[in-house]
């Protein structure tokens, strides 16, 4: 038993962290938000050059195999930095497409960004306006539920929601980009076109895992930024971080984040398919990472005071990303239902 990263995994995470740090991620994120995708694409190409998407692709298709733990570690860093773009979706699509006519090795080089709808997202794909390829993932019926059509809503537990197979289609049309609470994200309504025989189980599992990882990283960065601010900001003649009322909020955020870490590792083993892993660790990790990031975001806003409510303060980019990702690829309710139904995938 070794539920700790090994030397290679630690070194790889450090490499990814270094590339991100050199790229000034808040600037890249703000450019992306303003419609300039070039710096974000350049950053993704740098990350892809480390072999990042290849960690989701078998060797016979130009990848290096199936390494969810390494991918999760990389996406904790991506979440920490707040790198923009449909990166989770690109890697999840890269995991699903090998061996199908839709496969493109440019997904490995970082030249190609892809996006795909979360089947619970009523046909909205993130950043389809910036992606080279867009896909629609549906539950087995193939129908894309429209708003108000009686499809399962958040928190509902359909008889087999999430349990059955899903179907993947190319996006036949893309609607207008709608802004997200996270200014770096846009949601675009996509209609299903041609069916694509991809590995949808792998796609969904990886998207859930990497979204959880991103949430954990964003939460950790929000806590670190808040601790730094609380140590520097003085009121009543002392650092506000010396007040228990502030300290205890930060300590509670630290507890939530710290105990999400081992769940994320367990989830990576479950997605990898380890016999000794527990499939419930995936929805458990998504729920715990979302909860911890949400706690960290609330605390960050409160500790920063009005500054934490501004658009211009860089840390609030993560605050807003944490909010957007909380429901993506498995709401907390869907994750809890999956835990109780002994399932890997949140419905």
């Amino acid at each position, binding site marked *: 038993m070794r539920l700790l990263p090994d030397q290679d995994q630690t070194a790889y995470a450090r490499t990814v962290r270094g590339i991100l740090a050199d790229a000034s991620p808040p600037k890249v994120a703000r450019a992306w938000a303003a419609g300039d995708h070039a710096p974000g694409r350049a950053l993704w190409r740098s990350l892809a050059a480390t072999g990042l998407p290849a960690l989701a692709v078998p060797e016979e298709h130009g990848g290096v195999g199936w390494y969810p733990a390494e991918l999760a570690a990389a996406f904790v860093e991506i979440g920490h930095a707040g790198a923009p773009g449909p990166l989770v979706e690109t890697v999840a699509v890269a995991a699903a497409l090998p061996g199908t006519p839709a496969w493109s090795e440019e997904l490995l080089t970082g030249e190609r960004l892809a996006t795909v709808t979360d089947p619970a997202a009523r046909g909205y794909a993130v950043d389809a306006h910036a992606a080279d390829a867009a896909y629609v993932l549906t539950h087995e019926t193939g129908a894309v539920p429209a708003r108000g059509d009686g499809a399962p809503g958040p928190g509902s*537990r359909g008889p087999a929601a999430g349990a059955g197979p899903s179907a993947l289609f190319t996006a036949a049309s893309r609607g207008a980009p709608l802004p997200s609470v996270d200014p770096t994200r846009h949601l675009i309504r996509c209609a299903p076109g041609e069916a694509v025989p991809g590995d949808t189980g792998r796609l969904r599992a990886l998207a859930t895992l990497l979204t959880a990882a991103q949430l954990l990283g964003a939460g950790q960065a929000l806590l670190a930024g808040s601790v730094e601010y609380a140590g520097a900001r003085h009121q009543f003649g002392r650092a506000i971080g010396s007040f*228990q009322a502030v300290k205890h909020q*930060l*300590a509670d955020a630290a507890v939530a984040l710290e105990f999400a870490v*081992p*769940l994320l590792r367990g989830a990576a083993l479950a997605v990898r398919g380890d016999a000794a892993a527990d499939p419930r*660790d995936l929805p458990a990790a998504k729920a715990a990472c979302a909860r911890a990031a949400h706690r960290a975001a609330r605390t960050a806003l409160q500790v920063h005071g009005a500054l934490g409510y501004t658009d211009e303060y860089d840390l609030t980019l993560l605050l807003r990303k944490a909010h957007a990702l909380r429901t993506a690829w498995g709401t907390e309710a869907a994750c809890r239902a999956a*835990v109780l139904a002994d399932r890997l995938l949140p419905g």
Partner: protein
Amino acid sequence: MDVDLTPAEEAFRAEARAWLTAHVPAEPLPSLETAEGFAAHRAWERLLYDGGWSVVSWPRAFGGREASLTEWLLFEEEYYAAGAPGRVSQNGINLLAPTLFAHGTTEQLARVLPAMASGETIWAQAWSEPEAGSDLASLRARAEHTDRDGGGWLLSGQKTWSSRAAFADRAFGLFRTDPEAERHRGLSYLMFPLDAEGVTVRPLGRLDGKPAFAEIFLDRVFVPDADVIGEAQAGWRAAMSTAGNERGLTLRSPGRFTAAAARLRGLWREYADPADTARAGQVADVWIKARAYQLAGYAAASAPEDPKAAIPSSLNKLFWSELDIELHDAALDLLGPGTAEITEGLEESAWLDGWTFAQAGPVYAGTNEIQRDIVAERVLGLPRGR
């Protein structure tokens, strides 16, 4: 990364499970916070000891089987999954023994540990005083050196909130041995008998009235030099060097929570309205947290010599103490009106006993306010101050 067990670990788990299946009493023992229950739990400790299961991680010389941290975690999972009795000897095993292993003499280890492991001697802790709770370093109970009987100490003062002291045999705690020194200095870590001349124990009822703790009044109680742990006047360091044991994994093992979460799921299947997603959410959250604690234990066991592998003990204590309350609140919610408030006489009453026990979690072993201060200052690096 992996969570695979070695064949030896699998065999260890199977052996523990087989023994527990054969020996765990079919009927729950009476509460260990009663005289009758205390005696029954002491007898259970003896049975555990004879089977070699009372202190699995200890050296063989003292009754253990030198289990690794991973094996200890597996044993605890099996122990609580089997519904085995609570450990009446836990103050000794989890709090005193680690300090003895770190600071005790060979003579002390040989004299104290086997009797602790077999339940022959049950230990109470004696940290708090009426004026020294969270601010433990302000304690006033004193020990004065004497040449009587070859040299020793005369203990005077008052200790309080001493868990198990109502029925225990001996206690351990800190005493001021240098009256000129202040705060953390001039304290000594001493072991003392609870039946000696000069000791008065006044049991205190916890919320349900059971005497789970006690006040201890000491009037020139003699303790030989051999019962000082570590160096005299250096007791604070000895006590704090193992305080993490009380707050970390060992006092409230992950297995205790994974077993309780599994029982809660059973209760949910039996009692819940399937349409009640709010209750389902509570149950799932408890399972998720218990699982997080279990995996955090596996991470710590992956590199037992690396302190960075383990979650800091103050974070741990916050996590399990809050989880214990959440878990029992969820169970009582499921049991519903009537059943949820009946303290004795039903099989389900065990949940209320657990709830009562859980209420104390955020208070003992350093209040959760103190733990949050420690997390903020020592883990996050925030400035000192309250």
